[in-house]
């Protein structure tokens, strides 16, 4: 528990991705089995205990600490778990602190009535950091800035096994991952993935530059639309059905409607969309269903999910990935014709004989839900990762508006001494008829290091107010903000939300009064 607590503590305070990777790799190298496997589980999919642990903790602390003092402390600290960890009297004394594996395994087999006594004993044995880590572990919210993917990347760095190989076996191994660690440390075979519905790392594309476009030979490539949803992999093997995100997270729970539509024996690659009466709904509608563990019946009706297929990876146990794209495409079409699954269709190919023709088609495409155009080499096998020269993504030129810098916030890590996160606004008429700025977006990229230094100096010299790490600045500086699209949003004061806003240009020359109005932005809404 001590090493795990130290790991979480350092991770929580370490902003840099590389430093986090080095801390994780150091832990995986040094920690014994099965401790490190449980730690990995906590950092990735989470460990779940079917016990009311939050309530048990609250009751325990109430029996040891004056409630008035606890409430005053809670108000000051701002976090219940941390307050319990810090306020627990005594602690860090007596018996040796428990091992992580002992804590997890004991709780998994404990009777509910034994739990309070067990927890109290552990809290007595641990120091403040250990208690904090224990409570984080039990309540299932680590929040130390480590994604499941980062943890798997650390496994790859530590072991030298490619990340895509680890992702491929990930859904066939279970906590405490002893088989996985044995394989990664060269002491065991690669875990068997054969007949299970496991994630196969996706093939990704490169953004195409204009000059590259001219060198594309239309004979070697096919074109298809890139739909504006999220890329997914749908698998149904060995009786298991699963839907995976691009990074291998299992998102089946949120999309039962499409999951139950996946026929047996297949692994498919496609775009997850919300489709009503054959029309692709705006991305915002899909957003409503993402990032949830489960979904309500009403939501299933009002926001029906759909998969538009790009590729087929496995068919009845046969691995199709080594085949050229055009052969896979033929298999995909044949498969789809045979099964005709509900909620699943195929993204059609676009005929073209020259790049000029394709450009004209692309410029004329007004159908909603199209995010870009894909160019795929006819003979490419399906290769995990982002191999060069196979798939290209051609995105539409972004939309832009001129907005006024309103607030700046300090960045993190290497940028912690700079005001590098900017909130910008557009003009509208205020209640008194005077023009006022309303925030429309926030961005922290798109500028060079040199420009960052200039922006930082501007913020410091034009601050009119400050709130903790945030400074409000004079309405003076105009940004040309580029973004992919804009949507209605009830969560924002302005009523709009941009997708991927970035600082395209800093308009040092442009007077703030001449920046765009909110109506201009609203006119760009696509839904």
């Amino acid at each position: 528990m001590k090493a795990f607590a130290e790991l979480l503590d350092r991770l929580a305070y370490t902003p840099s991705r590389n430093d986090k990777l080095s801390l994780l790799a150091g832990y995986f190298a040094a920690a014994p089995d099965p401790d490190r496997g449980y730690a990995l589980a906590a950092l990735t999919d989470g460990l779940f205990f079917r016990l009311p642990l939050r309530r048990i903790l609250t009751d325990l602390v109430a029996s040891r600490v004056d409630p008035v003092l606890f409430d005053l402390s809670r108000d000051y600290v701002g976090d219940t778990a941390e307050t319990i960890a810090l306020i627990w009297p005594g602690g860090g004394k007596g018996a040796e602190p428990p091992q992580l594996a002992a804590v997890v395994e004991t709780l998994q087999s404990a009777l509910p009535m034994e739990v309070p006594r067990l927890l109290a004993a552990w809290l007595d044995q641990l120091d403040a950091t250990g208690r904090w880590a224990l409570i984080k572990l039990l309540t299932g919210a680590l929040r130390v800035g480590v994604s499941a993917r980062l943890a798997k990347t650390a496994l790859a760095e530590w072991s030298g096994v490619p990340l895509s190989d680890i992702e491929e076996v990930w859904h066939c191994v279970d906590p405490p991952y002893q088989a996985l660690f044995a394989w990664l440390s060269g002491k065991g075979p690669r875990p068997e993935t054969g007949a299970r519905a496991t994630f196969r790392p996706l093939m990704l594309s490169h953004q195409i530059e204009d000059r590259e476009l001219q060198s594309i030979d239309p004979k070697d490539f096919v074109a298809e639309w890139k739909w504006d949803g999220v890329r997914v992999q749908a698998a149904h093997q060995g009786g298991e059905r699963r839907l995976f995100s691009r990074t291998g997270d299992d998102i089946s729970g949120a999309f039962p409607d499409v999951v139950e539509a996946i026929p047996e024996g297949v692994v498919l690659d496609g775009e997850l969309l919300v489709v009503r009466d054959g029309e692709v709904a705006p991305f915002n509608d899909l957003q409503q269903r993402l990032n949830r563990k489960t979904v309500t019946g009403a939501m299933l009706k009002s926001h029906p999910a759909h998969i538009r297929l790009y590729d087929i990876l496995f068919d009845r146990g046969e691995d199709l990935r080594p085949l050229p794209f055009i052969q896979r495409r033929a298999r995909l079409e044949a498969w789809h014709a045979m099964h005709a699954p509900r909620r699943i269709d195929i993204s059609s190919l676009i005929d073209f004989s020259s790049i000029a023709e394709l450009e004209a088609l692309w410029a004329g495409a007004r159908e909603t839900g199209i995010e870009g155009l894909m160019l795929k080499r006819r003979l490419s096998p399906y290769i995990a990762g982002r191999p060069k020269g196979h798939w290209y993504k051609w995105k539409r030129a972004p939309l832009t508006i001129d907005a006024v810098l309103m607030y700046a916030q300090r960045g993190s890590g290497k940028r912690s001494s700079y005001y590098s996160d900017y909130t910008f606004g557009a003009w509208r008429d205020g209640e008194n008829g005077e023009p006022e700025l309303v925030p429309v977006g926030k961005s922290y990229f798109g500028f060079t290091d040199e420009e960052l230094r200039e922006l930082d100096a501007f913020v410091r010299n034009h601050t009119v107010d400050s709130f903790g790490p945030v400074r409000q600045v004079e309405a003076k500086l105009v940004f040309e903000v580029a973004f992919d699209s804009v949507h209605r949003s009830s969560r924002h004061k302005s009523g709009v939300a941009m997708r991927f806003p970035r600082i395209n240009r800093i308009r040092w020359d442009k007077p703030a009064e001449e920046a765009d109005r909110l109506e201009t932005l609203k006119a760009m809404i696509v839904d």
Partner: protein
Amino acid sequence: MKPGLFETWLTVDRKGLYCRPGGFHIDPYGGAKRAVITHGHSDHARPGHDHVLATQETLAVMTSRLGTPAKRGAQAAVYGEKLKVGDVSVTLFPAGHVLGSAQVLIEWKGARVVISGDYKRSADPTCPSFELVPCDLFVTEATFALPVFQHGNAREEVAKLLRSRERFPERAHVVGVYGLGKCQRVIALLREQGYERPIYLHGALAECCALYESFGVRLGDLKSATGATREELKGEIVLAPPSAIADRWSRRMPDPVTAFASGWMRIRARARQQGVELPLVISDHADWRELTATIEETGAEEVWVTHGREDALLHHIQTTGRRGRALALIGREDEDQ
């Protein structure tokens, strides 16, 4: 004025806490005729008093910070020496907070009052340890008066800093420290653990360090960080005021690890707000256990709480059957920054 009714002779006016039979204020705000100063921090030792009584070290700090400790006369007191001031006698005792810090014992007609100033009970190689003074009324600080504040061993925190330095030998460790007290304590703790390399200082810290050395506190090899090159600072420890650690000043450092030595670092949100990567829980103030234990040990039946989180401490005092009172003193800040 009755000795047992403390409010009748110890009052709070616009300048702060005032002892009527003695005719002096303690740590007053704005110019006072007579002032007893507990220690040199700027929210306790203010300019503009006519007469000041304090330890020799505190007077030296005031001279260094303010030019002069008093407009008319400064009197140096030795710890434990009983002095007559007006109708009362005044004795200063070590408070263990910073160099020269003192508790003020006032005796009048058989009543004993101790004003703690800021204090801590844990060991500090740069100043004499807190001395317990039994009394009837104890006036205590409350900076860290919540049971979540339990400062650990400062030596372990300094060891953590040294381990981090070994782990990241290419990076500078920039440690935020309060200029008077914390800075010198961190240096002395590093030296205790055998760290003999030069320690680099932000310009604002040099004068206080020189002052400590003039009183015989050995701090070893100190260098100015201002002229040092980026290459030179790789793997080194640099001390700076908290306001400088994550600001423009620190950009000259090679990929700095931002550390901060303060009791507030026990609270994660406080550390994160300030962009601290390596929080070091080192405090010059009493933590919850020290505050409550000291109240108990003084034997005081009445306790007044000056500045900090007085709600929690007053609640505790009442549950132990003592009389408690909050003193609303102006001008006191969240200390230990």
